[in-house]
């Protein structure tokens, strides 16, 4: 399922996991948080958020519970499972490595051009 965001492939999952890792949170709040944190640099269409959440839940990385919000409405709160936490760590680490490597390469090529 192709995500319609401009995010690199697979990063949406990582971002969601990271946001959920901060504590149980419902879908709308995740959308808000992603919008704030990324300071509107990265466009996350809300439409692709929910399929991603359901996919992660399906893979057992997230678990959903129906709870009341502070306004008294019932909402589905997502939280990280043990498996999800492990996945977040490995993905975060590999993302780190990847970006470092990419940055290194970019620097090299700039150096070569000068």
């Amino acid at each position, binding site marked *: 399922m192709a995500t319609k965001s401009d995010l690199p492939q697979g990063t949406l999952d990582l971002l969601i996991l990271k946001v959920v890792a901060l504590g149980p949170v419902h*879908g709308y709040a995740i*959308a808000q948080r992603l919008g704030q944190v990324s300071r509107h640099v990265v466009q996350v269409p*809300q*439409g692709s958020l*929910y*399929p991603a959440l359901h996919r992660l839940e399906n893979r057992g990385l997230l678990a959903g519970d129906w709870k009341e919000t502070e306004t008294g409405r019932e909402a*589905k709160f997502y939280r990280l499972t043990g498996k999800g936490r492990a996945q977040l760590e490995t993905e975060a680490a590999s993302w780190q490595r990847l970006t470092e490597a990419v940055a290194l390469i970019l620097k090299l090529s700039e150096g070569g051009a000068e």
Partner: protein
Amino acid sequence: MNWWHRLLRRKKMEEQLEKEMRFHLDQHTAELMAQGIDPEKARRRARMALGGPERVKEECRDARGTRWLEDSWQDFRYAMRTLRQHPGFAVVAILTMAIGVGASTVMFTVVNGVLLRPLPYPEADKLVAVNGHTDNFNTKLFGKQNVAYPDFLDFQRESHALTLAGILFNGGTASGAGEPEYVNFNEISSDVFSVLRVAPAEGRTFSAEDDKPGAAPVMILGYSFWQRHFGGKAGVLGSSLVLDGKSYTIVGIAPAGFRLYDSEPDICTPLGQDTAKYLRSRGPHPVHVLARLRSGRTLAEAQAELSLMGSRLAVQYKDTNRDRSFVVEPLRPEVGDLRSTLWLLLGAVGLVLLIACTNVASLLLARAVSRERELAMRVALGAGRGRLVRQCLTESAVLGLSGGVLGVGLAALGLQPFVAFWPGALPRAEEVQLDWRVLLFALTVSLVSGFLFGLAPALRAPAREFEQVLRAGGRSVVGSSRRLHSSFVVSELALAMVLLVSAGMLGRTLLRLSSLDPGMNIQNVLVAHMALSPGVLADTGRIRAAWQDVLERARRVPGVESVAIVDTFPMREGFNAMGYWPTADVPPENKQPQALATSVSPEYLDVMGIPLRQGRLFNEQDRMGGELVVVIDEVLAQQAFGGEPAVGKRVWMPDMGYGPFVVAGVVGHVRHWGLAADDQAQVRAQFYYPFAQLPDKLLRRWSELMSIVVRTNVRPLSEVPSLKRELRGAAGDQVFYEVHTMEQLASDSLAHQRFLLLLFGVFAGLALVLACIGIYGVLAYLTGQRVPEIGIRIALGASPSGVMWMVLRQSLGMIFVGVALGTAGAWAAGRVLKQLVEGMQSMEISSFATMIPVLVFAALLASFLPARHASRVDPVIALRQE
């Protein structure tokens, strides 16, 4: 949550999804409103941001991973609905499949039971058979060699790889309680039950102490014999039974269905107690040896070990064991030449199934074409191609499976009658049952056929440009499907043709074989085995007197014309082949030509009505002390003496142990091996020699094998009770058993061919009917599609007969191609049949000549109805339709 869990809670999950979306929208709207945007606008912006709740929901459902299952469920319900809407189509398709699957399931069940199922013993794959082998032995004629008892004992004592058990097949008279009865008894070594890992039903098996000369005589009864003879009473253990004049104590009962080499023994006695001389010598090889591999040992190790022991024996006992080796093979069920017959029938049934599939495929295709608009509409609404293919396949799988379930039901009903109908006894018949393998087979067959016949319509369905279809209204675009339809009809006709011609060839073969002259007068002749009283067998003088007495008593029974005794009679399995030579310098054994030897009392040739060609028949003067004589048949006369007159010539027969013999007469050839098999038999030459000239040392052995033949002038079977009564002997323990009439035996010798003919006839009939339904369906459909066109033709002046001819021409084209392909197929099938069926001759051209018109006529008949329908099209109505 498991996927089925998710599937079951589908409704709840849908509600939750809806709730989650609503929550999101409400939150977003509320937030926007808080920023001062008016409610209407805020709601719209929230919706835009989310991007259409229905699409998001759809993607969430996809993410759930149970999509395929939900879709299949949907497809399944849709398929059921469409089938219910067209009950006629559904019934025809399901019944067709049920017949195809049912017939193949029955055949497969038989194949499975007889050929595929392992022997019914624990760890049957560890069981092996040990056979002897001598290079100059004619294995092809006589079968595999068994093992000498002393060799067996050596192996049993020394082998590290095998635990061995020996079995000796024997027969005798059981007497004591009630009517004396001839029984087959097996002398077994004490390990037979433990090697097979079979426990007795009652009592115990033999111990090592029982299995020695001089031990107390004990016996184990076969289950059926126990039921038959003692009514299954448990009290028989410890009581005694007389077998061949010797009293045995019954110590055990074998379990029900216990078989040794596919025959259930009546009685088992310990082999080690038998002190017969031939069991002490390494010369004769009477013992069947089976064994179990010890744990961790392989077949190769066992073979190596036995080869080594065999070569040691060859050095140690040069006289008997030179050139002798031993072969270890996995123990297989004894099914004789059934293997090829069964595969042949399974193949034939496969053709019927294929025709059934083709039939349903053409029906489905016809429907797919008329559903084109529906499918095009679905494509227009966004259905993917793969999705449509899947839906079509689901529909055909539902058809296939329903047909399959019904088919298995039919098979379960038909199985027992089919097995009972098998000519002779089907070996391992008790193993022929529906088991998981059969069910798996039926399931696979129905699913695969479902996909097979669903594939063509399915792949075709979305291939069209859907706008074009929608615009055309599904009427004028049938062109390309016509070729596919025709190819279905053609293949159905070709397959039906293969079966029809095969049935025809079998029928002609059977006709030809039954009109063959058996070489004797088979009418009004009764044959039966005869066991003399065990008491007289010890003394040769008493044996000869006893046989004389039997002949005289039988002759006195009213209705009996003449009577004789003989060791092997025609059309039965027994035979005695031996080498002969027309001069005194006889070559070594494996260079001698073979002939069938038959020991007879003087009247035999007369009783059987075997025609005399030259010289004389036997008479009472051909006895001990007289000139040694034989009567030979035409085949032997030709083989041994060419064209020269044979009477008065001499022949040497080293296997007889005496001779030479003077040829007293030449008689006609008798089809000893049965009407069908005799022409291809390896040994056809025959000679007869007088039982009265048999030396004393052979007399006892022969007397255990003799049969009695009786020519009557009333219905032969009506003589059985009086013969039985008359021949009971002085001690009342002489037995007259296994009674047959010669006519019955001659007819039984064709049972195999008759059975094949019947099955092929049924298959061919089914194939013909299915093919005709197929032709009718396809033509009716195709002409139905052409109604407007035909209307225009008629409006423009085409005559009804012209229109009819147009339709018939179309079907004639298909019939022609079908028959051409079918002829090639039938020719190939004929070659296979010739290999597998005795008495079948090369291509019977006449069966092509009879079957092609049958097929063409039936096919034309099936096309006639649609053609007539087309010729009666009313142009006004037809054009108004357009």
